[in-house]
């Protein structure tokens, strides 16, 4: 790879990194805090490119052909415009248990005040599973996630939880009972309802469930992951 191509590569990768960090687009891939390291890395790459273009001497050694591969993620970004992880991946990884052996030993706080209480899907799952639903009894909750289904035709309000980036995403889902018809897969919904007594408590009994009063279709939240 020649000098000009190297400079172009550094500019392109740097500009993409800054753009993704600057807009909310990075939230499809990484956690929010990564935006600042991304912008910083982009600035460094632009500075390196500038050094290459404006430096007086030209004895730079050529880069190996593999360097062209650095263009690949950005070509993919342009061609596919990857969506946030959705129903397809959630349904295929549905067998993976979420958060076991759980946060139970760290203690669960009582549910905050409010009716309905907005609750993360993962939080709802953990309260049902490791607290035997004790903190959920008699409370109306509001869960936000996208729609996924199972082969038996039931549907779930679903969310991915990520620790670093989308590569370590773990799906967590809560079955929705009592709603009329399932919205289309991957639709974002806000489900208001109450915990179905006993659901999701035992290890083998499957997902916890919510008896829905209302299902409202919404726009995708700013951060698609929990």
């Amino acid at each position, binding site marked *: 790879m020649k000098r000009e191509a190297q400079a172009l590569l550094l500019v392109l990768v740097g500009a993409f990194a800054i753009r993704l960090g600057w807009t909310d687009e990075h939230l499809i891939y990484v956690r929010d805090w990564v935006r600042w390291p991304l912008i910083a*890395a982009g600035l460094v790459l632009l500075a390196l490119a500038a050094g290459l273009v404006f430096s007086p001497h030209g004895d730079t050694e050529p880069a190996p052909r*593999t*360097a062209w591969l650095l263009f690949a*993620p950005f070509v993919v970004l342009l061609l596919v415009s990857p969506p946030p992880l959705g129903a397809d991946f959630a349904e295929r990884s549905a067998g993976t248990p979420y958060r076991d052996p759980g946060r139970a030993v760290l203690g669960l706080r009582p549910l905050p005040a409010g009716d309905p209480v907005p609750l993360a899907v993962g939080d709802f799952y953990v309260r049902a599973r490791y607290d035997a639903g004790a903190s959920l009894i008699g409370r109306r909750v509001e869960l936000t996630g996208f729609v996924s289904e199972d082969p038996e035709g039931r549907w779930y309000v679903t969310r991915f939880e990520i620790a670093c*980036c989308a590569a370590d995403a773990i799906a967590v889902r809560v079955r929705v009972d009592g709603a009329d018809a399932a919205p289309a897969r991957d639709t974002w919904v806000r489900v208001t309802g109450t915990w179905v007594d006993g659901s999701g408590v035992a290890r083998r009994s499957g997902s916890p469930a919510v008896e829905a009063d209302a299902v409202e279709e919404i726009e995708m939240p700013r951060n698609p992951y929990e």
Partner: protein
Amino acid sequence: MLGGLVLVALIQRWLVPRLDFPALQTWSTIFVAMVLQALPFLVGGVLLAAAISAFVTEDRLRRLTPRSPWLGVPAAGAAGIALPGCECASVPVAAGLVRRGVAPAVAFTFMLAAPAVNPVVLVSTAVAFSGRTDMVAARFAASMATAVLVGWWWQWRGGGVPLLATSRHQHATGWRGFADSARHDVVHAGGFLVAGAAIAAAVSALLPRAVLDAVAGSPVLAVLALATFAFVVAMCSEADAFVAASLTMFSDTAKLVFLVVGPAMDVKLAAMGAGTFGSVFAARFVPVVLLVAVGCAVLTGTVLL
């Protein structure tokens, strides 16, 4: 160049609506995510390596490291505790150290230890395993043992292996050398990082977890399966404990194997190692690290878990 841009625009118009396979989209999301997550760490590691190359004299570095590489290896392992780094950063830093005359065995021990035993990784392991200190202790012990044993092995046996990084002579010093070195490392390691991420994302997106769970019952197969899984999914060491904790079908020892192999060696690191130090190096280093890591993890797991 202009032709290329026109081509991209055309492709975007015509091809994109036809690329609507769910599996391809999942792969692309995970692939881009891995590259974006790694990029700041790669750039950070490259800058640190460039600073070592350009501003730290060989004399000063020699005074900082023990004279004998045999002692330097455990010292480098201990240094890994204090310097939280990600896998992607530690490869260029090791290359920077080797270029500045540090014994390769010492640099490699640091490269293996830094992403595995730093406080950030240990805390995230404790959180993922709900405060189980035995898992944290076992991870620390097995990863440290792996790093030190591989370092000693390299000191004993690795002398004859040519290393690409050492053959590159420094053209300039000061800021000029700093920029040259940083750019050199970005374009060398970056392409390989991308190749590793593409493979790892394909495994994450396409491999059904049921395939893994099928072998969880057999102790030997379970260890081999999770060692392979750790190698091919190439997860960040700060995040892998959360995935390990979700592998509930597997024994604790098998989970430990996953946690010890992943930060030491995976498809992304093997590719970056080949790009930075040469393929001759990778062909010898990668299998040994895998063997030692699995061995240390199984032994530690048997004793501690």
